[in-house]
């Protein structure tokens, strides 16, 4: 009979050699071939998520606001399309974001889904517009209408909003509530003729390794 030690020596050596080669092959790299590009809908939560403002929030909020604006009598019953100027959105949350993206999406939704019901004025392009008008007035470029006539429109309404948040962090995790508030201001009377809001709350907990 072979001694016990000799018996276990052969399989032990075999396991060791296998472990050696297996160890060499695994360099600890996950997905060494990478992950192919995944197309996501903008309104769905992807596999990369935080508690801040994300694309699905933008889509949800902007769609809700665009539908809500179209229902108000000042827009729905207007004989001529009211002119609207976008004013910067105030960010009062703890998340640095490009907040004007909300207004861009609301404007795009209104222009594409309710063409002709409202007219947005490109006030952010005033410098280029004035320059072009001056070139026409000087005769440096052609004009299809009398450039001396003032045709830049004034605003009937201002569309603006704010993002406000409440954030909590405890051992149980992080919680972020954001209130998205938008309103339409009558440029003549300063009255707020429409206001709507959306609220989103998210919670998450980091791995214990980060706590």
């Amino acid at each position, binding site marked *: 009979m072979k*001694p*016990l*030690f*000799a018996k*276990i*020596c052969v399989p*032990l*050596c075999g*396991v*060791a*050699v296998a*472990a*050696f*080669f*297996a*160890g*060499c092959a*695994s*360099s*600890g790299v*996950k997905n060494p071939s990478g992950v192919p590009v995944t197309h996501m809908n903008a309104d769905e939560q992807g596999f*990369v*998520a*935080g*508690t*801040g403002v994300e694309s699905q929030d933008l889509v949800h909020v902007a769609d809700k606001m665009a539908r809500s604006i179209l229902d108000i009598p000042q827009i729905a019953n207007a004989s001529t399309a009211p002119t609207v100027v976008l004013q910067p959105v*105030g*960010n*009062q*949350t*703890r*998340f*640095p*974001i490009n*907040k004007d993206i909300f207004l861009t999406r609301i404007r795009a939704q209104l222009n594409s889904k309710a063409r002709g019901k409202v007219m947005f004025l490109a006030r952010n392009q005033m410098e280029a517009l004035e320059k072009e008008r001056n070139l026409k007035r000087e005769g440096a470029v052609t004009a299809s209408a009398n450039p001396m006539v003032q045709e830049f429109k004034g605003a009937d309404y201002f569309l603006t909003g704010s993002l406000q948040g409440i*954030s909590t*962090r*405890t*051992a149980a995790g*992080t919680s972020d509530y954001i209130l998205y508030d938008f309103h339409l201001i009558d440029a003549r009377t300063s009255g707020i003729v429409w206001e709507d809001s959306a609220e989103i709350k998210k919670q*998450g*907990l*980091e*791995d*214990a*390794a*980060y*706590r």
Partner: protein
Amino acid sequence: MKAPWQPTLLAMLLIVAGCATPTSQVALTGNVLVDGPNAIANGPPRDRVLWQYRTAAAAMRQGNFGLARQQLDDAIRTLGGIYGNDPGARKARSYFHGEDKKTFIGEPYERSMAYIYRGIIYWMDGERDNARACFRSAEFEDSDAENREYAGDWVLPDYLDGLATAKLGGDGMDAFKRAQSLARGVKLPPYNLKANTLVFLEFGPGPAKFAGGQYGEELHIRTVPSPVTSARIGVDSLRIPVAPTDDVSFQASTRGGRVMDHILGNKAVFKSTTDTIGNVALIGGIATAAASRDQTTQEIGLGIALAGLVSKVVSAATTPAADTRTWDNLPHYLSFACFPLPAGPHVLTVEFLDPSGRALANLTKTINLNITAADRDKVVFVSDSSATPQTL
């Protein structure tokens, strides 16, 4: 029959060698602006944020705010999306990997500093509300300290939150009062909405992490006294003394215990226990085998010794070491001053003062300012290691 020790030892060595995981290393030159981009591109992904932090701080001192903005944005995206399942973090919690296997996002004081730097750049870019968002996040990152007395106790982020709010037409007094209550021995100046020149100062060597305990399982913070303890700003006829508002080393050392410390403690106990069991089994087994003339007893003794050896290997493979990766170019102190300047060119000098109030001549910085409009904020960032002169 003679026991075959050599093949067994070789086998054990092969097992240990086979388990070793190769890691990608980058050659360091000592210049963060060279090493940082290189490590971000070619180094381990888990260290990416660490190098982004370091690169951003170094870039800000060179006046390269574009590079700092890019690095901080990417780092902040990582630390904002760290929730839930994370393979690196899971590995860091396992017995056989060190804590540094997790994706680095830094301890709360480091995360806060990332937000503070980004807030400064947002303000520089004229985005006061996003700057304020960053200052709020900086305070937020510090809000779950074990000792509640030290939770969310940065002074400057609260002060700047209120200042940004006031400049945006809101009421910043709540934030101001909070900042004043946290400022130890410093009377904060009331908000001056006409102040269009905002000077952010930082000086002194920042905190460093080191591992303590039997197996390096305890995370400690080393702080060194700063040779610079205050500063003096000179511009036109103004001479403005500036005391520190925040002590980064204090923030680093008052965080208190972490959940991860408990996990590392468990790892250390496991390592110690398996090592002790291994010692007892090895010695006992070999002694039994050596003392006995009976073959069966010898075999049992050798079996116990082998089990002890396995236990020693498990102990050796257990890694309770704390993660000591440090954002190593942070300052010791932060401070701030703001004042009104008329439109036009100005020369601003910053003298850094030692504890006796003497200016350290080799640290004096000169900034050539061009105030384009009295109603637009000019943001100046000066470190005691900033390049000089700079033109803004």
